[in-house]
């Protein structure tokens, strides 16, 4: 059924309140079940053998000794995973990434797997597998990989060029001629990992009839089902995937890594197989985000009008081409109304793990280049950085740098809120500096399918298929309660397994609450239609004379208006005799997700003798469209900023000369600890998305876009040196100070 998706501007009763999340108590008491918390009778433990080389031809794998070891039930290599991908390059890349075929393409690339009765047997078996490698030259740096003569990683690519995407309009060369000032600068960012607390984990079973089940930590169990079924030649309907609670994903759990291998081992051994990655495996062989290298050139008039804006950013995709350059290219200049702008995103292959999304993937790097250069321009023009941005800001009706003409958007209001925020006026001490920066993210909608079932006691089960990564069950319960006119406590929202609902796209692109919120609204409205007809039956009046108000069926008109209203509970209680269960259902490809903008302010102190940076104060201003549950909107704002602070200051994949990762653990891959962060202050703006009944925009990702640049600008103001490389680690800052 089609419904009108446009914004209604209605007043809310429960939406916008802050009740406790339904999954909270289970999570703090340890009762919640995550990926590694499920076991099955007779289960085997699976471990992966991984390449110790950055790049090597696999000459031979001898598994005979491992297979003979008592307690080993299955050994798997690429030979057990025939190519069933039917020419689909993306699926083939996934297959090759899950298990190396003729070549190991990065340090940690899986080459074989074992399932055994326990972990120590599996460990012994791994040692008995003999892999003969022929080492190949490797390259891990994004700029080195593009040079003539660099080792080629994928034979089908042109050198290591995975793709090149250009966006923009006007004529940048002509724009430079109009400019009074031109700023040109190059920047680099290190490769970072999402750093989710929960490693990848799953429990796989495949029965003799070929039907399987997978319990797994994931952001998209339907996607995992489809990909695993494709790679293993199973029917989609015969693989049931159940999502566990998720201990963080941030984009890293949008792709399969160990799951097809666990299923293949289970099928081969005819036993349940549990597979859990170690932290080292997570770093080496899941999907971090790209390292990048970029060149920026901006020209402007003396009054601050930008006449020309150019950026090229090269992204390291790991060993398989992705769409990271394209995404980055689209975001680069999106905050601004520019006559002449161009952005180029380049995907580059290197001997590093296959990159996955990380919260607004590719945008933080572009923002680092763009927003740092804008601050340099502001300094050159002796202009306030916020004023410079406001002078060039995009508004409703602006032709965006990546194509579409904007509807109502929030960048100007976030900048005005920053300009007027008390944080901007607070005093700074010695060695302290303040920076600000803006950020953009698209958000997406996508396929969604929800069920709403009303019990005889009038409580409501809402079943959705989008994974709850940040409080979505609370938000969706609020939406159902709002529509039905009942209490939040009377709604229980569950993430359904893949057999219980139609396809739902992965929770990515900040789509969970936007799309499932829309499906929930319309499922509830369908249930209301059913309840109106049941009330009409109970009253024995025509359905046309029944309306729905505040959780009650109301009889209308002179003839029936004196009937007392029937509550949802009363109608539900009679449902067994008035036609059976009451339910609503909705499936949709949710369009019009509504773009998102944020502006951040940060104060830092830089120790001039050690180069160490302490973040003192941080403020996030972001447009949420409508904050359904403000706590969890604020949580997203704070979480993105916290991750951005880590990325800006210390997090980085460090590779040795041998092309191997030197810091695959939280000791030397330094995510911020609690005491590294100040309280992150937030300000939610609500500029309604015209394409959603409640005005919702996605809120999960934009908050990681400005921090690299905001902190870069703050460090620059504190220390008097422009940092052009992220992370701005103490040795880099000290070196910059000494060279200044």
């Amino acid at each position, binding site marked *: 059924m089609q419904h009108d998706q446009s914004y209604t501007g209605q007043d809310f009763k429960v939406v916008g309140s802050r009740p406790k999340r339904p999954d909270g108590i289970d999570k703090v008491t340890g009762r919640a079940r995550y990926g590694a918390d499920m076991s099955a009778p007779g289960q085997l433990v699976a471990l992966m053998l991984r390449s110790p080389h950055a790049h090597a031809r696999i000459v031979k794998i001898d598994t005979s000794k491992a297979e003979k070891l008592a307690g080993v039930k299955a050994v798997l290599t690429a030979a057990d995973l025939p190519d069933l991908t039917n020419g689909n390059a993306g699926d083939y890349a996934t297959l090759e990434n899950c298990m190396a075929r003729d070549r190991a393409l990065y340090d940690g690339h899986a080459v074989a797997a074992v399932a055994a009765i326990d972990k120590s047997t599996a*460990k012994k078996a791994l040692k008995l597998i003999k892999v003969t490698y022929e080492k190949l030259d490797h390259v891990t740096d994004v700029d080195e990989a593009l040079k003539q003569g660099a080792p080629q990683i994928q034979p089908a690519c042109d050198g290591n060029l995975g793709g090149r995407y250009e966006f923009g309009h006007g004529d940048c060369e002509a724009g430079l001629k109009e400019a009074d000032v031109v700023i040109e600068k190059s920047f680099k960012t290190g490769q970072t990992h999402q750093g989710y607390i929960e490693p990848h984990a799953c429990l796989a079973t495949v029965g003799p009839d070929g039907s399987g089940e997978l319990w797994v930590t994931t952001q998209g169990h339907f996607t995992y089902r489809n990909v695993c079924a494709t790679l293993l030649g199973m029917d989609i309907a015969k693989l049931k995937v159940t999502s566990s609670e998720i201990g963080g994903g941030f984009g890293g759990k949008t792709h399969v890594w160990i799951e097809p291998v666990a299923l293949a081992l289970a099928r081969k051994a005819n036993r349940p197989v549990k597979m859990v990655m170690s932290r*080292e495996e997570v770093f080496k062989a899941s999907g971090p985000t790209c390292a990048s290298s970029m060149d920026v050139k901006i020209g402007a008039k003396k009054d601050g009008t930008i006449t020309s804006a150019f950026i090229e950013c090269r992204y390291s995709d790991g060993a398989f081409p992705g769409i990271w350059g394209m995404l980055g290219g689209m975001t680069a200049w999106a905050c601004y109304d520019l006559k002449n702008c161009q952005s180029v995103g380049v995907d580059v292959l290197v001997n590093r793990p296959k990159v996955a999304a990380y919260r607004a993937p590719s945008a933080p790097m572009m923002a680092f280049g763009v927003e740092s250069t804008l601050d340099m321009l502001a300094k050159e023009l002796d202009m306030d950085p916020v004023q410079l941005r406001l002078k060039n800001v995009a508004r409703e009706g602006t032709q965006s740098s990546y194509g579409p003409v904007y509807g109502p958007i929030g960048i100007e209001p976030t900048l005005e809120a920053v300009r007027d925020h008390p944080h901007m006026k607070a005093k700074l001490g010695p060695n302290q500096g303040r920076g600000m920066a803006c950020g953009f993210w698209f958000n997406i909608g996508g396929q969604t399918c929800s069920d709403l079932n009303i019990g005889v006691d009038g409580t409501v089960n809402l079943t959705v298929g989008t994974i709850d990564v940040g409080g979505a069950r609370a938000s969706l319960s609020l939406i159902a309660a709002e529509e039905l006119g009942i209490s939040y406590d009377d709604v229980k929202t569950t993430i359904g397994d893949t057999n219980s609902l139609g396809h739902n796209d992965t929770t990515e692109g900040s789509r969970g609450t936007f799309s499932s919120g829309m499906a929930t609204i319309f499922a509830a409205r369908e249930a209301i239609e059913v309840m109106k007809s049941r009330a009409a039956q109970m009253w024995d009046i025509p359905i046309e004379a029944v309306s729905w108000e505040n959780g009650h069926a109301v009889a209308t008109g002179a003839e029936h208006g004196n009937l007392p209203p029937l509550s949802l509970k009363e109608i539900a209680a009679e449902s067994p005799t008035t036609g059976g269960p009451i339910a609503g259902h909705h499936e949709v490809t949710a369009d019009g997700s509504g773009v998102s903008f944020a502006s951040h302010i940060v104060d830092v102190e830089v120790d001039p*003798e*050690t*180069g*160490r940076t*302490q973040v003192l104060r941080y403020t996030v201003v972001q447009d949420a469209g409508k904050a359904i549950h403000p706590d969890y909107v604020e949580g997203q704002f704070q979480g993105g900023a916290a991750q951005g602070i880590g990325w800006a*200051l*210390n997090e980085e994949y*460090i590779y040795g000369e041998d092309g191997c990762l*030197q*810091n695959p653990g939280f*000791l*030397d891959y*330094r995510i*911020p*600890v609690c*005491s*590294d962060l100040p309280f992150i202050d937030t300000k939610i703006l609500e500029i309604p998305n015209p394409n959603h009944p409640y005005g919702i925009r996605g809120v999960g990702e934009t908050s990681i876009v400005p921090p690299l640049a905001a902190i870069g600008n703050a460090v620059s103001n504190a220390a008097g040196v422009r940092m052009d490389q992220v992370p701005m*680690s*103490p*040795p880099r800052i*000290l*070196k910059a100070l000494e060279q200044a």
Partner: protein
Amino acid sequence: MRYESPTTAKAAVDLLSKEKGKAYVLAGGTDLLVRLRMDMIEPDLMVDIKNIPAMNDIKKTPNGGFKIGAAVSGAKLGANKAISKAWPGVVEATNLIGSDQIQGRCTMVGNLCNASPAADSVPAMIAAGAKANIVGKKRRTVPVEDIVTGPGKTALAKGELIEAITLPKKAPKSGDAYLRFIPRTEMDIAVVGAAVSLTLKKGVVEKARVALGAVAATPLLVKEAADAIIGTSLDDEALEALGAACSAACKPIDDKRGTVEYRVKVAGVLAQRAAKIAYERAGGK
């Protein structure tokens, strides 16, 4: 792997000396169990010393110092007011190891015997003039600076273990301090560590010991650095000489935690800052 939990030092020594395979001493286990889990070691025998009563005690020595048992946790050390007052640098250094949870388990002796160049408590112990009481075939007492011989290597012979650390009596008008550099605020490993212990006479430094961590294969006792401040009232010139002596003593490596250049520079900076704190604690103005 065998796990043994003797109740006397002698029994522990017997177990360790008779074992033909690889034997390890387990105190808090905050390094050992991590290495075990990461498959970095495959012990044949693990001797847990936590059930040896004497090793869980902190005692005053007859001459006014302290004897700290090998199984005394960082948290227990931190709760001891007398040691915290006498040797704040040593206690602070030990309490920097890991998190609150780790503090409930980790020990100074474990930190020493793990023999990491970056161990936090070791430079502080060296600066304080601490000694290790070793049991084995014979008992012997060795200055802490002579225990670590290289990364992961100690001067202990097979069948030997350290049963306690002794700290000398605190001299009047003395103070100590330890500072480490980490990029984060906690839960990290020292990129550089610097400890200073000094005694004043009429506002002038009469005695001093300066030790550095994470800037060479072993923690360093830097005599030239101590000489740079002895006889001074820690004026700017003395501090500069101290920093230069510390930087000159560094033999660091370039690694994922820091560059040679960075460690050399920051070793001097931290030593200066630690010296100022120690000076103030000694009553200097």
